[in-house]
């Protein structure tokens, strides 16, 4: 039994790796697309099997616990739906000649490598390994962002690359510092990097070192999370890359970095005299929220708009985790899941919209609900969801965050509510322009599969009205772990 369950973990890692190798070899793009989908599906199944099978004891490199199962399942699921979406999307790109067959081979291979990197980051029990995995995922996305080879794409990729590398460096230094803090207690060698060991002994680590380490880690991984003022790469990378990548960036990569931050936050909270991570995270969260909310107003590019909204929501999530406590943590987890689903759904819709309208300029897209009802209403529902209106999932998490915060620290709830309102105004303003009014722009028919986006939206809706009891219990347990 144990053997099999270990297989599950291995499968999560090996399937993408193998698929990447195959895809790099396959010439025909149709086949690559299919293989891509199949591989993602298999990975998803493997991830789901983690529920049924019993978990391996945390090893030196790999670990499976309640916390990362949330992320793994979410990751593989969105990875799968995105691969489905990208199949139809990429086909269109090939027709319009924005991409060539070799590009596609590269693209799909990279896609699987990225999935590999992210899964590895989640299951890795070794902070060094985790660092490597996160960087792997980052670099692959860098390459995919630049895949169009246009001014904008190259520039976005370049910016992403430089800022990302600095982030990498900072994160690494943080990791080294953690090792230095652990080494006297745990002793030399790999053990001093094994998370499950660290968390037990964290109380005896040198608090000063840990504090410095956390600051570097927060900035390093925070760059990936896209917290202001470290966010600069995010909007352009979302806007200029292929839309499936934008979806993956917003839906998954940000979560990977967030996951890393959370792991280290736990380490910090375990050591009492060290600097409290809460205030730092709350501050960064609020800054990102309010900053992004204001930035939403002047956006002209539809994908950049939603990229900024991702920054906003990451701000909310980090704020919630920074607040801590069962309610806020629960809300943070819920919000993260809901945001991944919703935002990727929105990007699916936006991708098709940009294809049928032949532009990403907001000013040139009008009256979608009339010209393309399927896409238009999907966009409306998505934006309504992301803006935190019921009966969709994000409303529940925002409800919990705001009300619990107001009951505990009213003066913190005021800026939170302010930011939410500002962001809502901006999103709704753009939505009104995009979805309603005299139709404008191309009227090409959609040859898109609505399945991915509508399935996501359906899930979000379901979560908004009804959370199954086991899920709740599980989230509450995780929230408990997060303290």
């Amino acid at each position, binding site marked *: 039994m144990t053997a099999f369950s270990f297989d599950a973990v291995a499968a999560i890692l090996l399937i993408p790796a193998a698929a990447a190798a195959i895809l790099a070899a396959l010439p025909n793009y149709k086949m690559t697309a299919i293989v891509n989908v199949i591989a993602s599906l298999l990975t998803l199944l493997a991830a789901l099997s983690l529920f049924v099978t019993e978990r391996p004891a945390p090893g030196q490199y790999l670990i499976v616990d309640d916390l990362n199962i949330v992320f793994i399942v979410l990751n593989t699921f969105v990875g799968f739906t995105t691969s489905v979406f990208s199949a139809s999307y990429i086909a269109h790109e090939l027709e319009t000649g924005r991409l060539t067959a070799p590009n596609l081979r590269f693209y799909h291979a990279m896609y699987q490598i990225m999935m590999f990197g992210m899964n590895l980051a989640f299951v890795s029990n070794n902070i060094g390994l985790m660092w*490597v995995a996160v960087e792997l995922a980052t670099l692959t996305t860098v390459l995919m962002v630049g895949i169009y080879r246009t001014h904008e794409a190259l520039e976005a990729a370049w910016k992403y690359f430089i800022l990302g590398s*600095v982030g990498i*460096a900072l994160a*690494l*230094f943080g990791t*080294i510092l953690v090792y230095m803090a652990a080494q006297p207690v745990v002793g030399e060698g790999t053990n001093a990097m094994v998370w499950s060991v660290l968390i037990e002994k964290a109380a005896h680590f040198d608090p000063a070192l840990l504090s410095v380490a956390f600051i570097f880690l927060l900035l390093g991984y925070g760059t990936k999370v896209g917290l202001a003022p470290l966010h600069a790469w995010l909007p352009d990378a979302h806007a200029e890359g292929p839309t499936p990548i934008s979806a993956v960036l917003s839906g998954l990569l940000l979560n990977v970095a967030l996951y890393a931050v959370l792991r280290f936050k736990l380490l910090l909270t375990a050591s009492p005299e060290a600097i409290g991570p809460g205030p730092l995270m709350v501050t960064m969260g609020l800054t990102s929220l309010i900053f992004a909310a204001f930035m939403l107003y002047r956006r002209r590019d539809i994908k950049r708009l939603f990229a900024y909204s991702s920054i906003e929501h990451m701000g909310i999530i980090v704020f919630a985790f920074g607040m801590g406590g069962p309610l806020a943590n629960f809300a943070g987890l819920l919000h993260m899941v809901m945001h991944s689903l919703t935002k990727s759904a929105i990007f699916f819709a936006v991708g098709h919209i940009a294809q049928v309208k032949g532009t990403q300029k907001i000013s040139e897209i009008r009256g979608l609900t009339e010209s393309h009802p399927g896409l238009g209403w999907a966009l409306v529902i998505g934006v309504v969801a992301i803006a935190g209106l019921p009966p969709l999932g994000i409303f529940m998490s925002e409800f919990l965050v705001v009300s619990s915060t107001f009951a505990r620290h009213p003066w913190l709830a005021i800026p939170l509510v302010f930011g939410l309102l500002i962001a809502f105004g901006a999103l709704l303003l753009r939505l009104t322009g995009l979805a309603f009014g005299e139709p404008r722009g191309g009227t090409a028919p959609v040859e898109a599969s609505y399945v991915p986006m509508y399935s996501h939206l359906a899930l979000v809706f379901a979560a908004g009205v009804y959370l199954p009891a086991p899920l709740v219990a599980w989230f509450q347990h995780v929230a408990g772990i997060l303290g």
Partner: protein
Amino acid sequence: MNGLTFDIAHLLAGSLVLVSFMMLYQDRLFALINVFALHAVVLALSVAWQAYIQDAHHLYITAAIALVFKAIVIPVGLHRIIQRLGIHRDIETAVGIGPTMLAGIGLVTLSMVLMLRVTPEADPLAREDLAFALSIILLGLLVMVTRRNAVSQVVGFMSLENGLVLAATGAKGMPLVVEISVAFSILIAFIVIGVFLFRIRERFDSVDVGALDDYRGERR
């Protein structure tokens, strides 16, 4: 350990910081690159020394990488790029040399203060190394943000990364050090090749990142 080994390690690390300072006041590209080569050499020495005193033989690989790759290959490559792309040879600085130096001194003191808060129980050598490494990293960042010119920014980044390697090697028995240094060398290669391969020359007039930035995706 005896005092001598400690002093040598200390000396090497300290001189690394010194070289970082030298980078701060270079105003010619070639000079900067040469200084960086020196930086890499010193790094290689100190890594080798660490390998010796910890008798961790894998660290010699790291030292070798530092020596071959950073001290020779990269500088030569950068020379080539500069000639190919015909970049004018002096560095435009965003902040004057004087203020930069002052800022550098401030950063070094900051890192010292931070690291001296670390409890003495920790390995003293590690503490010193960390303090130096931190200051090297900060100085590297400082170079990156005060130089307008892509090549010098790359150089700044590489010096930052040298600081990382120093810290990593200073940490006794830290696993993956070699892998990490390899990974970083690849990263840097990427950056250098990026500067080159983006055929920036063809798209923009200079390698100045500012010029690269003048297209913002959404024009005002």
